[in-house]
């Protein structure tokens, strides 16, 4: 199962909504990286815009950016991955239930708190009546949405799938975390198809999600994909600065990737959030198309070749592990 990624729209803490992937914004030492939001007026109908919660604006605008970058091509299915979904609206509603002892609750935050709100809004905006799904599975939410899309394309009933990964920063949630790392947020939408659409298309060759897997799941995955590790032109690693989390990536750097494999990190650019792999995928797709990763993302430069084949590896608290293999379209 595979898919061609033919367009992307990304709202992130970098100026990616303008298709600027230079990632030059200095983010060092920040506790929270808020998304840089575009002027929504050009992307969302003003009547709808007034009624939208922030995550709905982020999601609808990123979906529209993706459609614009695809030259207006419409999807025939919509799949969203979101770890915490509309967590801020959920907190508002819960707070009103608890603090007013159920006396002062209003329907709007309840409606806005539903996890499939973004996918539903995008369907209404684009008037897409076919397949619509939302995966909410912590650090594997976006990858599960991608896998769902790969299955749909494999079944040949749908040919243009709009897949998104979206999460917004939640102060409440952040306050509860024991390990504080730079937190981020973002909305990335991608138009996936069974055929490449142009020279900037990249191929998603495989997506896998694992829960508490054994030691050797990455070599096993690469073997299944007939990709010896020295064929990788880069590894994108979800290092987030927490010593416990990063230890796993460091072990891979020591044991799996040869010294020539360039290593790329991205969470210092977008922050940690459950669907940060959407940022990583957009970054990888752009680097494959442009022939290089932006310097701020490079942890360890390697062989000078342009990136053709790239592995994205992320884990969430050493519990959910995800792998995405991306390569230049047409490369076998």
């Amino acid at each position, binding site marked *: 199962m595979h898919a061609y990624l033919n367009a992307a729209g990304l709202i992130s803490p970098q100026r990616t909504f303008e298709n600027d992937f230079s990632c030059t914004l200095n983010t060092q030492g920040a506790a929270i990286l808020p998304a840089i939001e575009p002027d929504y007026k050009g992307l969302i109908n003003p009547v709808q815009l007034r009624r939208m919660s922030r995550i709905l604006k982020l999601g609808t605008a990123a979906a529209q950016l993706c459609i614009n970058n695809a030259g207006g091509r419409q999807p025939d299915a919509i799949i969203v991955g979101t770890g915490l979904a509309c967590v801020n609206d959920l907190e508002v509603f819960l707070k009103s239930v*608890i603090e007013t002892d159920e006396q002062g609750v209003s329907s709007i935050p309840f409606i806005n708190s*539903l*996890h499939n709100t973004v996918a539903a809004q995008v369907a209404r905006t684009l008037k897409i009546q076919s397949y619509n799904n*939302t995966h909410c599975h912590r650090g594997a939410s976006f990858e599960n949405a991608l896998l769902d899309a790969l299955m749909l394309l494999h079944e040949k009933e749908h040919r243009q799938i709009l897949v998104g990964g979206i999460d917004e920063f939640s102060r*409440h949630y952040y306050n509860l975390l024991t390990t504080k790392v730079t937190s981020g947020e973002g909305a990335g939408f991608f138009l996936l198809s069974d055929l490449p659409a142009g020279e900037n298309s990249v191929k998603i060759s495989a997506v896998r999600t694992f829960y508490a897997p054994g030691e050797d799941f990455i070599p096993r995955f690469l073997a299944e994909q007939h990709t010896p590790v020295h064929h990788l032109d880069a590894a994108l690693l979800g290092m987030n600065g927490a010593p416990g989390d990063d230890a796993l990536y460091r072990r891979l750097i020591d044991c799996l990737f040869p010294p020539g494999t360039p290593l790329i990190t991205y969470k210092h650019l977008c922050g940690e959030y459950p669907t940060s792999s959407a940022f990583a995928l957009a970054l990888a797709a752009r680097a494959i198309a442009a022939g290089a990763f932006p310097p701020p993302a490079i942890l360890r430069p390697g062989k000078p070749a342009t990136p053709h084949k790239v592995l994205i590896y992320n884990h969430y608290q050493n519990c*959910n592990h995800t792998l995405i293999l991306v390569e230049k379209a047409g490369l076998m």
Partner: protein
Amino acid sequence: MKDNKSSPAVYITGAGMASALGISLEETLRALRGQKTGIGPITLFDTKLKHIPAGEVKCSDEELLDRAGIRSERDTYSRTALLGLIAAQEAMRMSQSVVDKQRISLASATTTGGMNFHEKNAPAIFAGTMPGKYVTLLDCADAAQKIARHFGISNNITTVSTACSSSANAIIVGARMIKTGLADKVLAGGADALTRFALNGFNTLGILSPDGCRPFDARRDGISLGEGAAYLVLESAAVVKPENILGRLSGYANTNEAYHQTASSPEGEGATLAIRKALETAGLCPADIDYINAHGTGTVINDLSEGRAIEKVFGAAVPPVSSTKGYTGHTLAAAGAAEAIISLLAIRHNLLFPNLRFTAQMPELSFTPQTALKEQAPVNHILSNSFGFGGSNSSLIFSRH
């Protein structure tokens, strides 16, 4: 009946359920046969909405912990996770096949996730003083991760959350994992505990019935919420043992009405599309369907919209229809899987379950729901509808094997 040979079959070899009707298929079937509703007064937690009846699983969290066999870290289980575990355990016990762990996946569903835990610990959460180890109990993935850990499932674990159609969509994802060859065995279903959050949320929309839901009745006045969990075991032809087959998932469709966030269109356009597409994937025509287990929430809007969709697809020959939400209440993310299991019980035992509390014909509809228990009914193909906020319309078709 036409058999759709072009697409790999998805067999059902296990089923487990916990709801207001009881814990286990046996208790569920007994209540269904006895036409006993599980909807009644709220007893397990405090709420200002105590006057509104709901379908509770009549076990405290402590009892559920014991039934799920949890001995350590008992403070880290939300009610949703416990209900899910209990239903999943029954389903996996029933399905006896031995399948390579690498070929087993999990497609779970929830809408409230750990909200039950969230509510109990709200002061500490809002003050930021809740110990960090409980943070993961709050999100949607928690129940699925606990189920996965219990059974040692590690590949392709997901949680679907599409409001009230969630577990129907999880079953569809699971079926497609099998059809595309990603897995040979998938545990698929959903779980939701009753919460003050959901009670108040639906109450703000003015769609909770003050005295118990009466689907497809002219005097229907809203939903009765419920809680519960239901899981199916889906298997591929490669691993299934014929003697274990409970039925087949022969058709499905996931569509979106793209009409309104919380209301379905009066003409039931989205529901019509879902039912037609499900028939198409099953390779069946409307006349092949012997019974429709309707979404039938008991709201003014849903039942009219769904009723019209049924009339559009089935014309003058509408098969027996009932909503079993009068038994269980609306179990939100668990509803699709719970009604899938009720459909399988209908197929296995040749039964048609009545639509409880029906008294008055809806003037807008030509058909009347099934009001009496029917035994020795030949039931070969069942359509089960699940619709949700966000315009989510899903239909499943279950067939006798």
